[in-house]
């Protein structure tokens, strides 16, 4: 047990942690935009599965992985449009319609896999791209700069989302619409248009989260391969206090715990594997119970907007 946690293992865990945060980042940052505008999309899980399948199937048919990513973004946007129609225009209960979308994505992606592919085969997704120079730095290099390109883009999303949310007119509208849609409306902001935009954007990113699994991290598609990851991404938005940095820290915390748990299994640590697998989920519950500052929650979250008395 003592030599289980040597330097190489620690670097390995950190490397996996950085890597495994990728789908969380795409999905949670996307979900954060929706929630900041007042829409809770619990359909992330299903969208991720559809995105993952779309990207996988593209590459399976011989397309470039980038085309696979594009397909994932498109299918994600399309499912976002569906979610927006149901929850923004038709004002359905958001929690329920999101669960519906999740189950729909799960069922459809499994069906498509059986019909179009049969039994899953590995594909050649994005290769690892060691960033020249940076990847040579001891310890830091192997942890941060030894990944495929989708991993790097995921981390770039953090400063980009900060900029969009706090420095652009679009971001200002998003924040206003999620807190006080009536006030935004009175100033000529089109509340529902903003919500459509964030839900579609968020869902496209959820599709990309799926792609980051199927053509980035794992290079395969399997039935229900997300295995609750999309729901954790929703939880991460709460955990991160609806802020990009908070979401980043949350994603890293969860991915590192997952990585730790995987490495412990691989190294044959004397921990019951079932218990180890439960770790990230237990952490989700504890973090949500202890860590969430309700006070920061967008005031109009889950509330459809209708004008006037």
């Amino acid at each position: 047990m003592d030599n289980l946690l040597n330097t190489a293992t620690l670097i390995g865990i950190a490397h996996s942690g950085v890597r495994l945060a990728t789908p969380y980042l795409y999905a949670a940052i996307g979900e954060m935009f929706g929630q900041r505008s007042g829409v809770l999309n619990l359909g992330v899980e299903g969208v991720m599965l559809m995105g993952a399948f779309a990207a996988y199937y593209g590459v399976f048919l011989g397309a470039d992985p980038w085309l696979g990513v594009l397909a994932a973004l498109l299918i994600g946007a399309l499912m976002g449009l569906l979610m927006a129609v149901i929850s923004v225009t038709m004002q359905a209960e958001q929690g329920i319609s999101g669960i519906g979308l999740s189950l729909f994505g799960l069922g459809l992606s499994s069906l498509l896999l059986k019909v179009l592919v049969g039994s899953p085969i590995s594909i050649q997704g994005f290769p690892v791209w060691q960033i020249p120079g940076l990847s040579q730095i001891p310890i830091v290099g192997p942890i941060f700069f030894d990944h495929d390109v989708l991993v790097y883009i995921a981390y770039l999303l953090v400063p980009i989302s900060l900029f969009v949310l706090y420095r652009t007119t679009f971001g200002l509208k998003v924040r206003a619409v999620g807190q006080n849609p009536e006030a935004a409306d009175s100033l000529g902001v089109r509340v529902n248009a903003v919500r459509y935009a964030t839900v579609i954007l968020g869902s496209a990113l959820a599709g990309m989260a799926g792609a980051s699994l199927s053509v980035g991290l794992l290079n395969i598609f399997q039935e229900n391969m997300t295995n609750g990851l999309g729901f954790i991404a929703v939880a991460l938005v709460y955990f991160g206090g609806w802020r990009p940095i908070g979401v980043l820290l949350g994603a890293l915390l969860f991915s590192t715990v997952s990585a730790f748990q995987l490495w412990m299994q691989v190294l044959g640590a004397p921990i019951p594997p079932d218990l180890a697998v439960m770790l990230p989920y237990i952490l989700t519950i504890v973090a949500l119970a202890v860590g969430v500052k309700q006070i920061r929650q967008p005031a109009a979250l889950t509330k459809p907007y209708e004008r006037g008395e």
Partner: protein
Amino acid sequence: MSNERRKINSLEMIKITKRFPGVLANDQVTFDVKGGEIHALLGENGAGKSTLMRQLYGLYHPDAGEIRIDGQAVTIQSPTDAIARGIGMIHQHFMLVDELTVAENVALGMPSSRGPVLDLDRVEARIQALSQAYGLHVNPKAPVWTLAVGERQRVEIIKALYRGAALLILDEPTAVLTPQEADDLFVTLKQMKEDGHALIFISHKLREVVAISDRISVLRGGRLVDTVPNQGVTRAMLARMMVGRDVLLERAHKALETGVVRLALRGVSALNVTGQAALRNVTLEVHAGEILGVAGVSGNGQRELAEVIAGLRPLAGGSVELDGRNVSAWPPGKRTDAGLAYIPEERMHDGIVQEFSVAQNLVLQDYDHPPISRGLFLNFNAIAARGRELVSAFNIRTPSIDTPTRSLSGGNIQKLILARELSRNPKVLVAAQPTRGVDIGATEYIHQRLLEQRAQGAATLLISEDLDEILALADRIAVIYEGRIMDIVPRKQATAERLGLLMAGVAEKE
């Protein structure tokens, strides 16, 4: 920049008609305002003032009639459209996003000089310029949630001016202000008027309307009663136009001999929903046969005060006594049985069950006592009998006792709550904002009933943000500010000015 000053010389609304399902909200209303004029729009709640103005601001569209700006007929599609034409509106409930800064609130919905990227530095500079020009002092970098009510209103005015408003609609702007803050607002409004702005001032407070406006239009039941110049009108004339009959503005109010202490708060502290101190060391005594008024600007602990007495909010310190007994640990039901009656501020949410029938709501406090129930079972005949009795005794206008309560008007719902609470002959009555949003007729009725309770020896705590109401009814007036009782003043020594200073947190120096 889209915020250079426009000018509106005249705006006319001609024979405007607006229908909602089952209601004719505006019936051929004609109204006009000129640049450099303050035109007051007076009327009771539900008279159609807000509906008329919402059409001017593009939130509703008239079913018939015409709007003309400087003689040109226009169609105002949306608030954006109204803003583009130089029309701004200060809503009664502020349209501000609390989490955003002042500058962000002002910039929201406006094009930025840097395209998609915000130009908050430029917005801030322009806010500074506007606030200097009109005496609207506010820090552009401050998040709105940190601002006091008066400051928020200034932000609203700046927002409109920033958008180049030449005509400003102010919907009940003084409802949330202390008398002194209202005076400051009036100074700003007069300055804007001198500057050529057209101002529409919506109100139901006669005193203010007479104080500030050049012309006054009165609406009643969706119709224009008349438009009169301010010179030569009296408050009594305006009140008659508003209500359609003579109204008692001052109430005969005999001094009564007060009895024993029925309700006492001793050093009471409590927290609000967000965990901040809402009541700090509050000590009050209310005697039998007395109305103790609690005056204060909204949000200074009034709600929490009512809730700790009703038993709906835990105490953080001190004690509450009913009839000499310490009831601090008693649940609400036990306090009710001990003779406490409670008219809650949020009547739709806390006062009734909206889906229940009128008769059911009338027995909500007695459902577990005979004759309304025996053992496990409700006695429907007794419920119906009680319903009929109270509906007629309290003049509740409802199609039947089985009507769902939510479909009643605000005034009648309040009468229903009053009937339920007062029919139990309470020893102590806590009435929170009993006439807010209620028309003058029902208000008169509620006031009468409260005075009746007083004559019968009930101890009444009247919490109200309407200073006129407090001055009309209370024997003594406690002023609450930031959860503290600033002072308790006998009514004879109370003036609006003195109370106003206390409401603003200014303690008197002897």
